[in-house]
């Protein structure tokens, strides 16, 4: 399309008008805008107009005319020529990077490469099912796998090691991709299993402390640096503000992975571990029981509904202003800061997790790394059953490139980037202010990854243990089916050891 200046402006006004009135969809609008050299920033113009056509999560990129790195896009265009027309498929959890790519960034990749991208955004447990069925059948329905860190051992044999791919296919190796830029702790925690790099670090939700600044100031509380202080703060808030505002909140739905995530945090914080070096369950030892005792006290200061909530309910409880603090996923933070969605916008602050009550355990089994900052990261892997492996590999590199991660973060994703350089990028730092898509919690996320991160064990049975065995029995405990923490932990120990020993 060639336009002179006036025609161009008139055309921009026209398509913006159509977008705002809902006559054209976001994708058509962005494609047209991109051809006019506006990129995603064009959405900003639309969003400043009266309401009508605006939607989606993009809210912070409006002031910037972001255009993807021209060198990277030019290289992609050239490298992807043999694969134009192919389709790559990915089943992923609804996480900020996947949502950002699916709703806003994907068209740029498709435009440059001619490769079509189909992304299925699903609840985590359904992603696991899709993946498992895909590898079991070997059909290669999905070209890319979203692999949660707890599934690494299960799928390590079904993917292509990205390092090997990068070295062996030099014509498909993105210039300046820089594998060394990924945070080393993440590479170990969410990408490596038994010497195999399962996938490229893709996202890193991690537990950080988040608290209501206004309540803390009103009650004279200080940011908790110890677990005892964290509990005391919860009790103080509950005493002063309850029952309208609870001391803290949780994600404790029976039989759900989220319950297991909360448990590991308290377990590790008390010097415990899930497995000992001999591969036996150790959650029922002295440290494990101390963690349960602590958790019970903490639960007295949570809303009654926590036992029916996963992370969604937990996030909502803070969003609705009924919880004073949470030690939970950092990716909640930008959501809670969104004035249009949240009752606590600008009231939340972030801090690194409190120190453990005793030294973190170092002698564990199956690669478990205790740390109060429980991480739930995931990696993006190319399926070895894929019929479009090269096209998928190009997409994986683009999706995890520095430039795309900056987009994901600045577009309001809020997840912690997995690359060191993204934290230092000026565009990311520019969003360090109150509002949707804020990045003002990212320094805390970065420090937590470096110094407080805890990673679950890697074993093929872990998906079953963490998604069923442990959270089902813990659910029974909180529903009153067990008389004591010792009883439930012993029951879990028996079941876990039976499953692990086969």
């Amino acid at each position, binding site marked *: 399309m060639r336009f002179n200046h006036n025609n161009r402006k008139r055309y921009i006004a026209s398509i913006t008008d159509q977008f705002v009135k809902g006559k054209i969809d976001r994708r058509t609008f962005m494609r047209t805008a991109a051809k006019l050299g506006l990129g995603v920033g064009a959405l900003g113009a639309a969003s400043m107009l009266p309401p009508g056509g605006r939607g989606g999560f993009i809210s912070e990129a409006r002031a910037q005319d972001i255009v993807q790195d021209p060198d990277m896009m030019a290289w992609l265009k050239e490298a992807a020529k043999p694969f134009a027309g192919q389709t790559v498929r990915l089943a992923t959890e609804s996480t900020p990077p996947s949502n950002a790519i699916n709703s806003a960034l994907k068209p740029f990749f498709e435009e440059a490469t001619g490769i079509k991208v189909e992304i299925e955004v699903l609840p985590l*447990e359904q992603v*696991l*099912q899709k993946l*498992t*069925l895909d*590898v*079991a059948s*070997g059909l290669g329905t999905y070209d890319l796998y979203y692999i949660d860190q707890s599934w690494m051992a*299960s799928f390590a044999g079904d993917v292509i090691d990205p390092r090997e791919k990068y070295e062996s296919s030099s014509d498909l190796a993105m210039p300046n991709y820089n594998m060394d830029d990924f945070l080393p702790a993440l590479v170990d925690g969410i990408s490596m299993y038994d010497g195999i790099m399962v996938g490229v670090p893709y996202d890193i939700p991690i537990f950080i402390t988040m608290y209501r600044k206004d309540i803390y100031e009103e009650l004279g509380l200080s940011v908790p640096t110890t677990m005892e202080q964290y509990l005391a703060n919860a009790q103080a808030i509950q005493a002063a503000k309850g029952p309208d505002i609870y001391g803290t909140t949780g994600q404790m*739905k*029976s*039989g*759900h992975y989220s319950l297991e995530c909360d448990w590991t945090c308290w377990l590790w914080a008390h010097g415990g571990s899930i497995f000992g070096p001999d591969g036996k369950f150790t959650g029922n030892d002295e440290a494990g029981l101390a963690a349960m005792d602590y958790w019970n006290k903490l639960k007295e200061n949570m*809303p*009654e*509904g*926590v*036992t*029916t909530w996963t992370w969604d*309910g937990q996030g*909502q*409880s803070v969003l*609705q202003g*009924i919880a004073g603090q949470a030690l939970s996923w950092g990716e909640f933070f930008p959501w809670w800061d969104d004035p249009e969605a949240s009752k606590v916008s600008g009231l939340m602050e972030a801090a690194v997790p409190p120190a453990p009550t005793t030294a973190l355990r170092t002698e564990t089994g199956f690669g478990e790394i205790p740390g109060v900052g429980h991480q739930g990261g995931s990696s993006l892997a190319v399926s070895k059953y894929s019929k479009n492996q090269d096209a998928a590999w190009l997409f994986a590199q683009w999706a995890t490139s520095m430039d795309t991660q900056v987009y994901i973060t600045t577009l309001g994703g809020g997840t912690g980037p997995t690359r060191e350089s993204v934290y230092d990028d000026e565009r990311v730092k520019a969003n360090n202010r109150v509002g949707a898509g804020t990045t003002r919690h990212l320094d805390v996320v970065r420090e937590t990854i470096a110094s407080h991160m805890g990673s679950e064990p890697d074993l*093929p049975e872990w*998906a*079953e243990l963490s*998604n*069923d065995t442990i959270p*089902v*029995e813990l*659910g*029974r*405990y*909180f*529903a*009153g*089916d067990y008389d004591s923490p010792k009883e439930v932990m012993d029951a879990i120990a028996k079941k876990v050891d039976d499953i692990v020993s086969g």
Partner: protein
Amino acid sequence: MNQRTETGWKPKPQHPSRDAAVLRAPKFMLSDHALPWLTPLLAMLLVFALYPFFYNIWLSMHEFVPRKRALEWVGGDNWVKLFADTRMWGALGVTLLYTAFCLIVQLVLGMGIALLLDSDDPGFGFLRGVLTLTLVIPPAITGMMFLLLEDAQFGVFTYALQQLGILGTSPILGNSSTALLGVMIADIWQWTPFMVLIFLAGLRAMPTEPFESALIDGASSWQIFRRLTLPMLGKVIAIAVLIRGIDLFRTFDYVYVMTSGGPGTATYTLSLYAWQQTFSFIKWGYGATISLFSLLVILIVANVFVALTKLRW
């Protein structure tokens, strides 16, 4: 106009192209034999019923081995495991309780509402139409709706029950003793109208003479209901119970959406357990075994019921 032939008169073809097509059709398609007409149905049965059934039996004698990414022969091991699996028996107990309770409530409520709506007065037709609305909602959406209604913090239903003093502070779906009831309420809300519609169809098809005679003889409303309505509606009730009973036994959606089987295993139904074993843990053989066991239970119970109620098909 007809034409003369050597063997006699035959009709003149009115549509030459159609007749040509008939002549080109395979001979068996023109025969009076039943087989050609049954072939499509048999093909459907073979593809969608018989093959999956026999494949399921075959699968129950194998198990998927993740490390090898292959199925391995295990013989009767899955059946031995099934009968020793306490969680399966727990799930069966939950399923039977769920089925029985929902069925009784839906039966009683359905009959009551049907009797109330069995009228030709103005407005009753509209009310009968409104009843079908719940049936068009996907069960998963109904589950989500009741999940929110029963939420401990934000749920309207919870709030109302607490204000009435019926419910304490414990969340409905987070408590072992109330969670199953919380799920059953969603099922009852959605499917009672189905019973109402079936009973209404039966009620409105009944002859009026016996009722007029009973009224002339001075029978009370209760006597008319017990001695006329119920016996005459017997077959309809039996059909409704059979259809809903089988459907309830397979319950999955509400439990999956509302509790995921929890708290603990308090709402774990047999279908949910089979699904989890099959799709979450890729124990295809064991999942197939649980499914076959479910089928056996349904077949036995349904046939006993049919025999007891003397239903004829």
